[in-house]
């Protein structure tokens, strides 16, 4: 009994997104970037968020951190409603939730030294003592595998992409946040560097007890780090499930298509002979009903008329499809 209570507290929900909608104007038209997305992230878990470019996954990540204001819906972080917060309160909350970007070089100010960049979060959060700041910066730089003495006085352009990404991770970690949104953190990196950074993220997660939202377009990368995976298509969630299960038995035709399309580095695995044609429609005028129906071999009249809702198809696996795969 006691154990159960403790486990419940430990595995309690850290982040809860409820019916989040993000829309913004582009000229005279409206982009439906995120439409009615609900999800939960438990404390200590990594949720992978997968989708093709333009599906709204980055917008969702930024809307969670209130870097882009939602049109409607709520974001609850540790029980507090971020979407209702403003000014100083929001700024204080931000220290607990951080962000890592895709482009490691663009995410560092080219005219500031690495030491200043990593110390900036401490300055903003009011750590006045310069020596204490330096101690913390040294600690976190060592943690991400950089030699503080060698690195702190240099400018970002003196480093490679992989090293810059380490600096970004150090900056995100220096305030000891609970939650980090990783927005395609490895897609700009080469294969050999990518593996280093993925391993580092896993290590840091264990060391600092982090909860991660890991956004990527590469299913294999997402699987390598995630406990659960959410698949997004054109602003809506298609499928959410335990990663091993979701990859073994995808229930949504889109998840299946994504899996099939991944090139496998094995000459005996012949690539799928015929990948269905078609491309994602524009988020300015998404299709009615199920948004995937224009490319789905199983689509019928119902898919045209009714928006499918996420429902449980197997333990721990939700799918938004009228005709899920067996």
């Amino acid at each position, binding site marked *: 009994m006691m154990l159960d209570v403790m486990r419940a507290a430990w595995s309690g929900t850290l982040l809860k997104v409820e019916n989040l909608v993000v829309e913004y104007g582009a000229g005279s038209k409206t982009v439906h970037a995120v439409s009615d997305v609900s999800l939960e992230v438990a404390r200590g878990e990594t949720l992978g968020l997968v989708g093709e470019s333009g599906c709204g996954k980055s917008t969702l990540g*930024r809307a969670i*951190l209130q*870097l882009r204001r939602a049109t409607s819906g709520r974001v609850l972080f540790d029980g507090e409603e971020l979407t209702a917060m403003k000014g100083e309160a*929001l*700024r*204080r909350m*931000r*220290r607990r*939730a*951080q*962000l890592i*970007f*895709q*482009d490691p070089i*663009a*995410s*560092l*100010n*080219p*005219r*500031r030294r690495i030491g200043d*960049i990593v110390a*900036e*979060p401490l300055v*903003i*959060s009011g750590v006045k003592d310069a020596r204490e700041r330096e101690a913390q910066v040294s600690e976190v730089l*060592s943690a*991400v*595998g*950089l*030699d503080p003495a*060698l*690195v702190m006085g*240099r400018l970002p*352009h*003196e*480093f*490679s992409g*992989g*090293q810059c990404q380490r600096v*970004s991770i150090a*900056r995100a970690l220096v*305030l000891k946040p609970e939650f980090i949104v990783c927005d395609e953190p490895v897609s700009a990196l080469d294969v050999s560097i990518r593996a*280093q950074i993925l*391993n*580092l993220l896993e*290590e840091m997660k264990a060391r600092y007890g982090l909860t991660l939202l890991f956004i990527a377009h590469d299913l294999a990368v997402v699987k390598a780090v995630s406990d659960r995976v959410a698949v997004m298509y054109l602003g809506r969630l298609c499928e959410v499930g335990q990663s091993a299960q979701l990859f073994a038995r995808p229930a949504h035709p889109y998840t299946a298509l994504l899996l099939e399309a991944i090139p496998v580095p094995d000459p005996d695995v012949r690539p799928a002979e015929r990948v269905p044609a078609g491309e994602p429609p524009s988020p300015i005028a998404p299709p009615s009903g199920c948004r995937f129906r224009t490319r789905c071999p199983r689509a019928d009249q119902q898919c045209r008329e009714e928006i499918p809702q996420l429902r449980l198809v197997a333990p721990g696996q939700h799918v938004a499809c009228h005709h899920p795969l067996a």
Partner: protein
Amino acid sequence: MATLELAIEEDVAATPARRVRRLGPLFWVAFGWMVVVFAVALLADVLPLPSPTDMDMLERRAPISAEHWLGTDGLGRDELARLVYGARISLVVGLCAPMIGLGVGGALGMLAGYFRGRFETWVVGSMDVLLAFPPLILALAVTAYLGQSILNLTLILGVLGIPAFMRVARAATLTLARREFVIAAQALGATHLRILLRELLPNVLLPLAAFFLLGVALTIVAEGALSFLGLGVPPPISSWGSMIGEGRESLEAAPRLAFIPAIAMFLTVLSFNLVGDTLRALTDPRQGAL
């Protein structure tokens, strides 16, 4: 642990890859000329020069002599003294007016590029209105009403420079504000003021500084043009523009009276252009300096 091994393996190159950019001898010649003009203008009162406004009707258009190193002008005034004091006007107006543009235009541009929205529309719109007036014509019109004085001239030329500085600052801010390090600062809870001053300003300042030097060159030319037409600094104060204008009357008798200040002006403008352009090239994001 794999990561710790990396700290040794993937260390940074032993010597930082400093961008060694050769500025070239021309840059330094131009810079040297700028220093000379500055020095002469600053020390004009100390230098052993005759008064630039004392007329000597007996010695009109006197040739070059030991007494008058560059001769005298149509009213018998010492050409060298007028040239040196003219440098003062060129520099005072040329430096002060772009300061106004830099301060006001730079701030407006950064704010517009960072906050976007209605504020940006207003700023850009009002700059468009200001730009609708051909600059020299507006300057002429305003001096006609305000009256000729160095202060008025500086103010007008300064205001006319605002739109250009606004454009440079706004363009730089727009591209920077979309960069992820600015979003990272927002995610850290940095205030707008902090982002503007600590993240954006250091990056916007260099292109603005380079443009400032080009602005100095443009202002010297504009002041020269107004004075040339007799609508710039009020006589008898000497300015290179008015000296060229006066020299034009005696182009056949003593072309030197027009050409000496012309050469001084050309060299100064060229120097500012050259130094500014070199700096601009260094800070051009296309060259990968950012």
